[in-house]
């Protein structure tokens, strides 16, 4: 058995082994193996290529851009996605614009341990994918499975553009698979995580599992829920979403990020403009509440969508 976290480690080990241009830079990633142990033993296995960074996110990302210009393929580990904000300027204004301005590509991978876990509070829980997806020039990946964590991270490193790799901390230890995949869907392709004919739920990352649990709950009530896992939110596989809605006529989009704008709004906008005639009822979305992420598990459990709230939203849409 291999966990989501181990898959991330294995992908980095393979990237380092396969490509001498790859190196890893981040706080505590060296001999310590990272705050979450995503780089465990890599410094020993790949001497000189897994480096501890000072607490300097702006400079970490900036240095990666410079190294990429010179032909390297850096992987930057930000300790928590939330701490990417001091590096935001370099990510959105520099990495994201480089190719467009110069025709020199910027093959960097920025790993963001994302999303909420109980007791983590407002600064160790954020889901920032929508923010990064807003900027042209970035690819944004949001793997929901062990297999995708592995194969998509390898693809992120191989892609010639800056990739924001949003790995979900809640899945790190919870999620296990039999082994590493040998093949994978290409990035940009969504996956039907569960087939169903009555309603489509479009989601990504940890919320895929809440939605699958909700779908399971609704079986007893006679409903078949189709769950689409976007895998990457930019590019966003509109065709797979539309094809699913064409089969079901109903749409719920679920995301752990805040409601204003963002991924779920984008899904609804696309389906409303391109697939209005496919919808039997108005589409709906479910997000976290519009406040910072609370610390206490009682509050956190209500702040984010869960299998229960997804199931409730599904029932409401199914009864329309």
């Amino acid at each position, binding site marked *: 058995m291999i966990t989501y976290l181990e898959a991330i480690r294995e992908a980095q080990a393979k990237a380092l082994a396969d490509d001498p241009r790859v190196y890893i830079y981040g706080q505590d990633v060296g001999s310590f193996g990272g705050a979450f142990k995503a780089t465990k033993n890599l410094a020993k296995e790949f001497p000189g290529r897994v480096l*501890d960074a*000072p607490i300097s996110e702006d400079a970490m990302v900036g240095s990666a851009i410079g190294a990429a210009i010179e032909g390297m393929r850096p992987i930057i580990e930000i300790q928590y996605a939330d701490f990417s904000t001091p590096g935001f300027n370099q990510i959105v204004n520099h990495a994201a614009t480089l190719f467009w301005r110069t025709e020199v590509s910027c093959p960097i991978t920025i790993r963001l341990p994302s999303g909420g876990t109980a*007791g983590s*509070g407002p600064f160790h829980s954020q889901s920032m994918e929508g923010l990064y997806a807003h900027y042209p020039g970035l690819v944004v990946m949001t793997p929901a499975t062990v297999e995708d964590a592995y194969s998509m991270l390898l693809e992120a490193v191989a892609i010639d553009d800056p990739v924001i790799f949003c790995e979900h901390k809640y899945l790190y230890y919870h999620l296990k698979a039999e082994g590493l995949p040998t093949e994978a869907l290409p990035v940009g392709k969504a996956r039907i995580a569960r087939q169903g004919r009555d309603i489509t739920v479009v989601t990504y990352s940890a919320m895929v599992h809440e939605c699958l649990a909700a779908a399971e709950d609704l079986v007893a009530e006679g409903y078949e829920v189709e769950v689409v896992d976007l895998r990457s939110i930019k590019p966003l596989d509109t065709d797979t979403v539309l094809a699913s809605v064409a089969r079901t006529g109903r749409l719920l989009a679920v995301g752990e990020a805040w409601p204003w704008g963002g991924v779920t709004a984008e899904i609804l906008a696309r389906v409303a403009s391109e697939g209005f005639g496919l919808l039997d009822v108005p589409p709906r979305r479910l997000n976290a509440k519009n406040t910072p992420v609370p610390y206490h598990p009682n509050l956190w459990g209500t702040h984010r969508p869960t299998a229960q709230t997804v199931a409730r939203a599904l029932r409401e849409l199914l009864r329309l």
Partner: protein
Amino acid sequence: MLDTDPRVSAPLSAREPFAQAYRWMLLARLLEEKLASLYRGGKIHGGVFLGKGQEALSASLGMALRKGDIFAPLIRDQAGRFAFGEDILDAVRTYLGSKLGPMRGREGNVHRGRPREGCYPMISHLGAMISVVCGGLMARRFKGETGVVGATCIGDGGTSTGSFHEALNLAAVEKLPLVLVVANNQFAYSTPNSKQFACNDLVDRAAGYGIDGHKVDATELDACLDVVGRAVERARTGHGPQLIVATLLRLAGHGEHDDASYIEAELKESALGRDCLREAECALLERQWASAAELDAWREEALRQIEEAVATVQREPAPDPNAENWCALSTPHLDDTFGH
């Protein structure tokens, strides 16, 4: 005991602040031990971060400040919080997520404060508090208040942030009465000084900003009281920002989840690894500033306060999501409630 021992010859007038600081340090240490045991028993959600080894420095800062000053404590400042006036219930309620605490269960552990009382609650992003304290001091200046000091702390790791640089430079340009205490405890999580900065001593940076720099051995309470006290006084009397760089060793993991096995035994056994609390205790006895019986009584009193606070808070309600006001604006009619 020899008369030439500087500790023994310390003047009696120094007893009062020393003993007071010791008691804050002791209360902080014992409270944190209690919190660590609650954490191990699964009673605390999220992390627990101890100030073990940093109490002398932190208490000295809290004591040098006075009501009306601004203080933005950081991760390892329980002793300074107490000395600045934090109620033990604020600490316990935040750690246990009580609805009745200042953060109402919305925030946990060290992310707490009371801005209206001059205690700014940290955000996690290291370096972010310094400029905020600067702004607080600018506001006091606009309002014509004089003699105010603003203080905050940061670790050796936090000095590598852009925020640290921007804020210190701003403070220097504005000649603000800022006291920035850098607790160089040799490690930022697992990262040693050698991977954090390459200057000989962080205090050398003061010259680059054009501000006063001070060094202090944070294992020595006398030295902390003296150096921090003088720096705060200089800030208060118009000498601009003061950078204090204290050396010590973190005597705990980064958080209680971390066994800190990366800290070499040699370092722990060196002078840096001395425990400021134990050193202060020895000094109290040697100088006959306190008897063993008094020390015991202080400890008992601290433990009693802690047990009482924990017992009180454990009976308090957890936040109720249904009663929670899910609004992040103070202007509720401007809240965007679409879909809620």
